[in-house]
């Protein structure tokens, strides 16, 4: 495939439906809010280039697709390959996926498979040589065979359904090792202490930058809006990691100077929202955007397209290959708060801690229609939050734009009730 956007024969990419979907959203993100940070320019441009102009994803060596945060990216980097996260947020691809998937399946899985099925999909990952598919929820598990049927090479990264027991931990460590073997087969390279160390250092630097950004969002009044934060973490799916880290470091520097200037990105009384549940993935940033358009501000999140993907860091005791690989395995299993796990008290505790640390006024819980595990965990989370007096809005939605009116009513009502609560408290 050598068609470029300027190719006269091919239809202009930016006039395709998926490009327009992305463009509409980017316009909203950029134009509907004043005072976007200067450093966000990089991300706005990046998304326009990749999503609206179909610019291919930058990579070195083999391109390895991942369908979940459980695939250890450091291993992929260590083999000289580049990971790209395939989880897709486009309604357009959701519709394509609906052609061959059950109507009630999760839009994320539908859109991901839809984009893999589509021609000239964005992000443009035309040269995928392997897809690593962690066996997480049922729908992703079943996706392996479907992706294979489309002609992709797929590695099933076997993830245990529980994470508490030592058996699960060891099982997962073995899974990660066999993934390393698969990568070795694929790339013809060897995993060495030095290349893994270098790969881990890259990820660690990216995570440190993310953590700084995360901490800056504790600031009240807010320095930075959640819609931008989600854009930044979504860029991590496909952007060159070093370039991404530098851009985030620049953003952090700008936010720090905003902090000293006493800048406010939202009103002083704007309700501070903690976002949890099914992940907002570009261009489906519908819910965070609605929240912020209605005058709230998303200050923290507990989702696999942002916090859960980047927050937890790897610890190593002895910098030998075995300890590094086991350390990576642990980092991708133990702290994870995904509801696919049998027991998930960790998610409850994480939410309470985030709510306290970020001085949160309310929680918005997004559940994709068809994402059973999030739907099922709703009750337990609601109870725990209610016990602590933290209001929560549960929103069941999907990628289609047709519930926007209804959603905006609910979100506004929720924010209004939070404001009243806040006023009454004072």
């Amino acid at each position, binding site marked *: 495939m050598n068609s470029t956007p300027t190719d006269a024969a091919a239809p202009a990419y930016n006039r395709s439906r998926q490009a327009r979907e992305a463009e509409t959203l980017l316009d909203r993100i950029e134009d509907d809010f004043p005072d976007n940070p200067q450093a966000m320019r990089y991300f706005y441009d990046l998304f326009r280039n990749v999503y609206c102009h179909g610019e291919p994803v930058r990579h070195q060596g083999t391109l390895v697709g991942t369908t979940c945060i459980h695939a250890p990216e450091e291993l992929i980097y260590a083999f000289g390959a580049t990971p790209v996260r395939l989880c897709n947020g486009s309604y357009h691809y959701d519709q394509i996926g609906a052609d061959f998937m059950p109507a009630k399946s999760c839009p994320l899985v539908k859109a991901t498979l839809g984009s893999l099925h589509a021609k000239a999909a964005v992000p443009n990952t035309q040269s995928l040589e392997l897809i690593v598919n962690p066996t997480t929820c049922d729908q992703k598990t079943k996706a392996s065979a479907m992706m294979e049927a489309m002609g992709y090479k797929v590695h099933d990264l076997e993830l245990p359904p529980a994470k508490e027991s030592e058996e699960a931990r060891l099982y997962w460590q073995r899974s990660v090792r066999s993934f390393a073997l698969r990568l070795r087969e694929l790339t013809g390279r060897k995993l060495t202490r030095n290349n893994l160390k270098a790969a881990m250092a890259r990820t660690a630097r990216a995570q440190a930058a993310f953590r700084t950004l995360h901490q800056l969002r504790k600031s009240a009044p807010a320095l930075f809006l959640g819609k931008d934060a989600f854009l930044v973490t979504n860029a991590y799916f496909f952007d060159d990691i070093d370039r991404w880290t530098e851009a985030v470091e620049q953003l952090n520097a700008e936010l720090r100077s905003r902090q000293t200037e006493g800048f406010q990105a939202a009103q002083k009384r704007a309700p501070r929202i903690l976002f949890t549940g099914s992940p907002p993935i570009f261009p489906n940033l519908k819910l965070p955007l609605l929240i912020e358009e209605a005058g709230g501000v998303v200050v923290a999140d507990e989702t696999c397209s942002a916090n859960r993907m980047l927050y937890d860091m790897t610890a190593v005791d002895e910098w030998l290959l075995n300890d590094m690989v086991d350390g990576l395995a642990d980092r991708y299993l133990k702290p994870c708060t995904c509801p696919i796990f049998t027991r998930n008290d960790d998610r409850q505790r994480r939410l309470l801690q985030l709510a306290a640390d970020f001085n949160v006024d309310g929680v918005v819980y997004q559940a994709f229609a068809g994402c059973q595990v999030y739907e099922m965990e709703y009750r337990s989370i609601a109870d725990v939050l209610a016990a602590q007096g933290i209001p929560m809005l549960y929103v069941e*939605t999907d990628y289609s734009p047709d*519930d926007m*009116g209804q959603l905006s009513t*609910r979100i*506004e*009502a929720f924010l209004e009730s939070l404001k009243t609560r806040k006023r009454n408290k004072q």
Partner: protein
Amino acid sequence: MSYFAGIDIGSTAIKAAVVDEDGKLVGTRIAPTGSSFHKNAMETFEALLAQHGIVREAVKFITATGYGRKLFKEADDSISEITANAIGACEAGRAFGGVRTIINIGGQDSKAIQIDANGNVSNFAMNDKCAAGTGRFLDVAARNLEIDLEQLGDYHFGGSGAPLTINSTCAVFAESEIIGLLAKGHGKEEIVAGIHYSIARRTVRLAKRVGIEDRVYFDGGPALNKGLVAALQDELGRELVIPEQPQTTTAYGAAVLARSQYLDE
């Protein structure tokens, strides 16, 4: 004398309400939303003013609510219909000794709202992007049965047999189910009662999600339907508080809010 107005632009009807300086309700007006809701909203509002001999300048603050709230630029502010409904029900409910739970069935959605003693929303739930259990569902059913919407209440009590069970909650599927029942020779009365119970069960489930407390206030157009009210009371196991004009509670709430917003500034 200064006045304050609330305009509720819903999916089927536009409701306007005006209160005076003391927050006392002066009057309300209802008109169909139609295709050009902005024009209709303006006309409804102006007709209401004319009806009570109020000049436009005397209206110091307008708060818009309902689906069209954002697009009604003549308003000074807008508020979600959930908050407006809560305020309106809290005020109107005082005459009944105060209410804490509100059930609202509108043209395209149904809501359950829990409020505290001051009328602040403490919890709410709404149907998910589907017309099941909403006013639209009644519309569709009435059309299939070839009876007027206003007659549904009479039909409800007219049957001799037990209400039929309508299994489909989806408005589209219910349509064919109703046609099937008619074909089998069931009476319209039993079918209507069945429809009411179907909506009532769905609504009670929604209300249970927010928790049912104290007196339950029922508003929205369908609250005029005596049959639905009876079914709802039956399913709920308690009496409902129903205002004289159940359609305008939300507009009234917006007007009350308009007044306090004006006074705060």
